[in-house]
């Protein structure tokens, strides 16, 4: 179960408080009516499926009810950072969960 830092509550919370909302930064086209069918299909269906870092959207459903973004490694499930809608990710924010660690001793 993931441990996710909500950038609004400024705390880590258990995954069960959140809904996963898919890939982040999929902007609704400004002029839908002049999109081709292919462009519209890109918007509503086609998503990246990277092996590694993935920008994704989460909703703090049972909490502050705010949407936010996360950068998560799809292999290790490490969450590098989370950031508010409209913000740029701060990779140095120090809120990493599942840090590349260690068999430290």
């Amino acid at each position, binding site marked *: *179960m993931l441990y996710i830092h909500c950038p*609004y*509550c400024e*705390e880590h*919370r258990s995954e069960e408080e959140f809904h996963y909302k898919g890939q982040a930064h999929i902007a609704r086209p400004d002029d839908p009516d002049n999109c081709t069918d292919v462009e519209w299909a890109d918007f509503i269906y086609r998503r990246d499926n990277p092996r590694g870092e993935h920008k994704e959207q989460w909703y703090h459903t*049972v*909490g*502050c*009810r*705010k949407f936010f973004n996360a950068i998560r490694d799809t292999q290790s499930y490490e969450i590098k950072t989370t950031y508010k809608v409209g913000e740029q990710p701060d990779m140095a924010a120090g809120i990493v969960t599942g840090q590349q660690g260690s068999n430290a001793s």
Partner: protein
Amino acid sequence: MSDRQERDQTRVWMQQLPSGDVRVESPLYHADLPSMMAINDDAGADTAGGVALAELPLQAHLVIRGRAEAPGFQESLTQALGLQVPTRLSSVSDGSQTLRWIGPDEWLLTAPASQAFDIETKLRAALPGHVAVVDVSGGNTILLLSGLHARSVLKKSTSYDVSDRNFPLGKVVTTTMGKSQAVIRRVDELGWELIIRRSFADYLWLWLQDASAEYGLSVHE
């Protein structure tokens, strides 16, 4: 305020409480808590070592929305309620009214039952800009969970960290409770307040009774 706005707004919110003699039923009315209190009394239950549960029913519950950083918003809210606006994950209480941070633009106010309409009226007049006030009194109830094992019951019910160092007095957290949810506030050393939704009240009441069973449960006013 234009005539039209005035006419509109008189329709928007209303005194929702009846003036006459009307039976009112809290979400746990059917659970007949008074009869369970009588059992405590008969048994002379020692409540100190276990878990005590009470419903604080029929309070006024108002959702207040607004931009915390908007000019004049916090000042107006403070002036209207006589309460500071709580910051992230905290609450402010004067004993009668309690204001809780729910999200960056959302607060939950509780107050004595009869005050909902007056407070809503006052807030609508006072708050500037883009705001919303919603009476949700009928949709919530408050449970008070206390006793030496209250924390254990919470640990059975939510994955949120309820240790002293993470959950000081006055902190407010909306989180999972069983398979439902609650707004949890630490009210004193051994006491916790849970604001729960009406339709889930029966489930959570059963859940908490069951979770408390091994510690001994008593019901209080």
